[in-house]
């Protein structure tokens, strides 16, 4: 049993070491180089490389001799690093925060929901629950609704036409683009979120702007929806 475990862990270590070498050497590194730099037997290295290619952690480049990090590795890397947003998007967020006294957060939607820019003065404390339990926040509800709303907009293509900025109120009335939640993040906190749509494909939600504040002042949160709405239109091209 113990021997089996140690073998398993050394196989995992070897696989990670191979990924590290490919990451360090850059695309095009050959099997021979990888085997040499890890002092592995060529046969073992080739076996490991083929297995990492089969699981998409590595790819073989078109010349068939060079390797590069594949989707699997890239997804792993992006899952642990905070998503980068551009300076223009950060400026929009700063402007909103100077105008609104509640917590203003930007959330992006990929294969998972991620907190791209949290309000430094009113931060979301339990980020793990926020990401793992989408039903606890307004943004999470929009994330869960994403596929459903995509279907709806496909069924009603006329409504999905790109909207001019002054049509913000029309968007507000569309189902699935505004969500509200009470007491999920913390017992005394409510949230309101507005969907940020893809700038060209309006049936795709790329993220959400979320406002958090005390539940006792939930009515006041609502009054900021038009402000958030116009901000999402400015954020669209920056996140798409």
């Amino acid at each position, binding site marked *: 049993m113990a021997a089996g475990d140690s073998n398993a862990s050394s196989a995992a270590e070897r696989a990670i070491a191979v990924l590290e070498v490919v990451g360090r*050497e*850059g*695309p*095009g*590194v*050959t*099997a*021979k*180089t990888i085997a040499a730099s890890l002092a592995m037997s*060529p*046969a073992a290295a*080739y076996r490991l490389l*083929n297995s990492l*290619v*089969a*699981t*998409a952690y590595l*790819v*073989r*480049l*078109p*010349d*068939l*001799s*060079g390797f*590069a*990090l*594949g*989707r699997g590795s*890239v*997804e792993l890397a*992006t899952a642990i690093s905070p998503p980068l947003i551009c300076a223009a998007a950060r400026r929009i967020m700063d402007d909103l925060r100077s105008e609104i006294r509640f917590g203003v957060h930007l959330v992006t939607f*990929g*294969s998972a929901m991620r907190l791209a820019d949290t309000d430094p003065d009113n931060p979301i404390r339990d980020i793990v629950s926020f990401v793992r339990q989408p039903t606890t926040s307004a943004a999470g509800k929009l994330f869960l609704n994403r596929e459903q709303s995509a279907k709806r907009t496909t069924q009603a293509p006329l409504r999905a036409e790109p909207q001019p900025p002054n049509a913000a109120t029309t968007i507000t009335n569309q189902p699935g683009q505004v969500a509200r939640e009470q007491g999920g993040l913390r017992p005394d906190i409510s949230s309101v979120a507005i969907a940020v749509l893809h700038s060209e494909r309006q049936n795709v939600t790329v993220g959400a702007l979320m406002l958090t504040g005390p539940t006792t002042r939930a009515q006041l949160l609502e009054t900021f929806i038009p402000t958030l709405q116009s901000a999402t239109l400015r954020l669209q091209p920056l996140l798409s």
Partner: protein
Amino acid sequence: MTRATQTSGLRSISAVAGLRRRGLPFPKALGQSIAAAAPSAGMASVPIIVLAQSGANPMVSCAAATVLVLLIAYCLGQFAKRMAATGGVYSYAARSLGGTAGLITGWFVVLGYASICIASLFGIVRFVEEAMTGLGVSVGWGAVGAVLLVVAVATGAAALIMREIKFSAGVLLVVEVISIAVISALVLLVALRTPPENFTSALTLGAVDPASLTYGTVLAAAAFVGFESSTTLGAEVRSTFRTIPRTLVWTPIVVGFLLVSSSLSSGLYLASNSSATSPALLDAIAVVGPTGLSVALHLGVALSFFGCVLASGTALTRVLFTLGREGILPVALGHARSSSGVPATAVVTAMSVITATTVVAMTAGLSPNTGLTVFLTIATLGYLCSYLAIAVATPLFLRRIGEVTWPPAAAAVITAVALGYLLVQTLWTESSGGSFSAVLGFLFLAGFGIVAAGCLRVFAPTRLSGAGLYDEVTLADLMPGTTGMRG
């Protein structure tokens, strides 16, 4: 330290865009490979052919053939682990041996798939006729009826191949499972109805001298050809670098098991019935089972041949698609329909040529039985030549990408020697036996292919430059969130 390329040189769209990429699961890919080898037809015929022609023990010969085919599979696996090909053996050879040798190998592959389809159509006519005779229906339909049957079956097969690969491979899997179940049930029946005390004599049945065993192995190996056909679905299967190598290993194991079981059953029957003269499954079930089982046998084999037409036809269309995409054959062949992801022009071309050849041969007076033998011989020779090319190509390929190790290199050398010997043996015995015309036909066709490839090299070398195209890595394989995976 080498830094050969930069990722910026990657394609944004797959080289084989248009096909339904990465969708086919392992069972359906395995079904494709097993069906192309038509094991049910082999189960019914291999024991008698091996014993009658070589005098060797069919069971030992089938086991030896399984080992040989697993060696070939090991060589093919070296490619399948590294490149998602749509031209199968052709693409592998073109990548390592270059355009001209690759094209010649491709021609052998095309000969193999096309001839096995034609042989199967003849086989269907023969076994349907025999099933009808068994049912007491007189076969008074003559040549016209046979031609109509061929056209109907080929059209049906073409219509199925034209459907999305997931659907056609699913139908193929069902056809193959039914066919194997029917024949296996009959084989089991024969084994159970014969006294088990003859088990030892069944094992020692037949000669054990090396010469007859070698020839027996050659004959048994012919029952495996087509086992590699899933390599043409390299771009269409899910997790290709795992699925294709697995089908390459499991197909010979499944086919080998079925053939060895059938040989054992036939051996038991022969050892137990002093009056029996041959280990034919047909004779055996006539003795041990109720009348009417022969009809099931014939229909089971006919179904197996239909599965073979579907599987080999699919593989052939993918090879033609690849040659079209590469610009070696007309580009229309390399176009896949957006609605189904199937290379429609390649399907129509391949199935028309196959049907026309069968009909012409039939109307020229070739009997179903002769047609089956002649085209099966041509197909087997074509396949063996292509496998030999792969055995030679394997170490060259591995050396080229800097990943050569001794196990595949040693396996390739052993395979090449064994295949070379088998090929010479087959050519010799077939030409001195009844299939002289088939060998002559094969040599003529092979010569034509070699001359054509040579002409292309001399007069249009640029046309050959595209050879070896495969579903190489695209930008979408590096970047999550992009949707290019389905190409």
